[in-house]
């Protein structure tokens, strides 16, 4: 009962907040709605007994990635947008229609998933230790690859943002 109330409340807020991301014409407000959505996702992880991921979600998304977003938006000093959405009435309609159909299909397909078991609260398998174990044994290659990717991205981002142009043109 409590779990249902918490879940439905959280779902409602997350839906509203992500709709805020979609509809708010002010990019900064969009970003802040997104921050709140991320915190909601973190809570969902918490409810799903994935505490470590919840914390990492907070640190990585809310604490780092979205700070960057907000920072960039503030740096550009973007005003409220006159044209929030893309052009073309028909295209817009088609896009929304696609989205709705997609949602219907997704929800329909979820009922193909076989009947699920109870969420066991204190499972011995689902510990952070096991996560780390998997990460450093079975997925070690992917893990190292990700390290390389992040290095490449760091270099690429620095190189990209050092391109001279616009206000920095000589």
């Amino acid at each position, binding site marked *: 009962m409590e779990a249902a109330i918490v879940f439905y409340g959280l779902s409602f807020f997350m839906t509203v907040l992500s709709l805020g991301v979609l509809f708010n014409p002010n990019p900064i407000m969009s970003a802040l709605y997104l921050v709140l959505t991320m915190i909601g996702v973190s809570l969902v992880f918490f409810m799903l007994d994935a505490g470590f991921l919840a914390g990492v979600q907070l640190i990585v998304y809310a604490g780092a990635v979205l700070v960057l977003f907000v920072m960039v938006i503030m740096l550009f000093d973007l005003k409220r947008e006159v044209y929030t959405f893309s052009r073309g009435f028909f295209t817009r309609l088609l896009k929304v229609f696609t989205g709705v159909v997609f949602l219907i*299909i997704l929800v329909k397909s979820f009922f193909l998933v076989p009947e699920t078991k109870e969420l066991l609260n204190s499972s011995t398998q689902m510990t952070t230790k096991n996560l780390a174990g998997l990460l450093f044994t079975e997925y070690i290659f992917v893990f190292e690859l990700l390290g390389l990717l992040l290095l490449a991205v760091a270099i690429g981002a620095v190189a990209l943002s050092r391109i001279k142009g616009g206000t920095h043109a000589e």
Partner: protein
Amino acid sequence: MNDSFLFAVLLLAPIFGFLFNGLRFKNKNYKLAGAVASVAIGVSFICSVVLVIKLVAMPEASRAIHVHFYNWIEVAGFNANAAFVVDQISAIMILVITGVGLLIHIFSIGYMSHDDRPSKYFAYLNLFIFNMLLLVLGDNLLIMFVGWEGVGLCSYLLIGFWFTDQEKAAAGMKAFIVNRIGDAGFLLGIFFLYVQFSTIEFSSLNTLATDLAASGPLGWSHPLVLACICLFVGACGKSAQIPLYVWLPDAMAGPTPVSALIHAATMVTAGVYMIVRLSFVYMAAPQVMTIIAVVGGLTAFFAATIGMTQWDIKKILAYSTVSQLGYMFLGVGVGAFMPAMFHLMTHAFFKALMFLGSGSVIHAMGEEQDIRKMGALKKAMPITSATFTLGWLAIIGVPGFSGFFSKDEILWFTYASTQGSKWLWVVGVLGAGMTAFYMTRLMCLVFWGKSRVPEGTHPHESPASMTFPLIVLGVLSVVGGWIGIPHVISAILPGHPPNILGHWLEPALATANLITTSAVVEWSLMGISVSVVAISGYFAYTAYIVKTDIPEKCVKAFPRLHGLVLNKYLIDELYFGRIINPLIDISKGLWVYVDVNFVDKLTYIASDFVKSIGRLFGSLQNGNLQQYAMYIAIGVVVMLSFILMG
């Protein structure tokens, strides 16, 4: 040592040399380049020797080392392996290729010392050795074909090595194009053989062909006969037989060691080797063998006549090579496979020796090739002169020298084989006489008589790296013949030395039936040919040393005949006038009238159609990222709904 390891080293050592020199082709250090290349070939030579020793140790009936590296092509029943074999035939070939090749590499170090691209030269040379080894070691026709094409390529590259000279570049192209005709024949031959036997491996081909021949004579349209003809066309191209011999004299544009290695000792004998390899197949098609014999005999004769009139030292040797190759084909044509191989080997020794000798002379004369401007070089170049003399004695067939044994064996088979004829023997003997004439003429004009060397040129003896190969080849030219002594001669020699080569090759080759004759006939035939040689040699000596006005008188007596022969029977002009130019005209006509007006228009219609469709769909690709994303989303939706509905 492991067989496959030996094979790998044998094949890869030249490739290593090629890569080493090829990757630093701008380097001008000729000593390093030559040393690396020579060492690479030396390693191959050692491997060859080891392999042959292993082969000798094996029982006579099954002397063959097969090595299978991997499955090269496997398509729907067709199977070609990267497999190699050393048996009695290829053993001789690899010894000749790596041995003579090694000597020529060493010679080249001295010869190319003034060139500015020695690394490139040695890289090509090593690549050639590799391809030649592929050709002779291949266990099936396809590997042989790869080597066949590879040596063609190297030949082209080396003939046109000094490509800044228009004529030399053209000579390279001529060689390549003429060889293409032959190669097309070769490929068709492989196809025919595959159609007939469903295999391209030599051993199974030979067995199957023997079985087929046992069932009775084959008609002209039988695939095997067609295959033999086509393969012979290939051999004609590679081994410079009538009518495809025209490229070989022009090929003398390349560096002289190249002429010695490729256009005298090894590559041009590939055709002979191929036919010997497929001896059982050819024995199943006697009518083709007759063609081969006739073509070989005619080539031997006509090339010799042209050789008598030439003034360029290398051209004379080139025609001599064509003529000698003609003898080999005459040999294989009458079923004298063993003597053909024998002549191939001795020819490799003495012709390589003579080419290298001529190279030494040309080097000494400062790139002068006209024998009218030489003479009396004996004093200036004693070693070259002495070794050249040995080669001369060998090629004209003086008894005791290598050429005598091999050529005489071929002539004897021509006379005595059931597939030979007396007329072919006559042609052969006449050719031998002419050979004696033009070689003696060459000796007289270059080394003996009075010096006609122009002022300012000071001929000198070549360095040791050039004379050493000459000496080794000189020795081989003398003693090389003694491993294949005919039994009539061996009968009168003390100790009755056996015919080592014949004995060695016997299990691997088909043999022709000989008419039983007495030893007297054989002795008398030998006597006739030796005396013909002696007479014509003496005549040449008289004409060019004693009474030097005889040649001019002869020319005046038959001016038209001499002109015709001097211009090589106008064969090149004939080809240009009757074949090449009409082809060019037809092509031009097709281009101007058919291609532009018809084919191009058709393709324009097609391309315009594609273009308009592209424009239509291009409007979808308008650069709007969100529309692209929408396409993706719609695609996902469609796919998911298909999955869910289905």
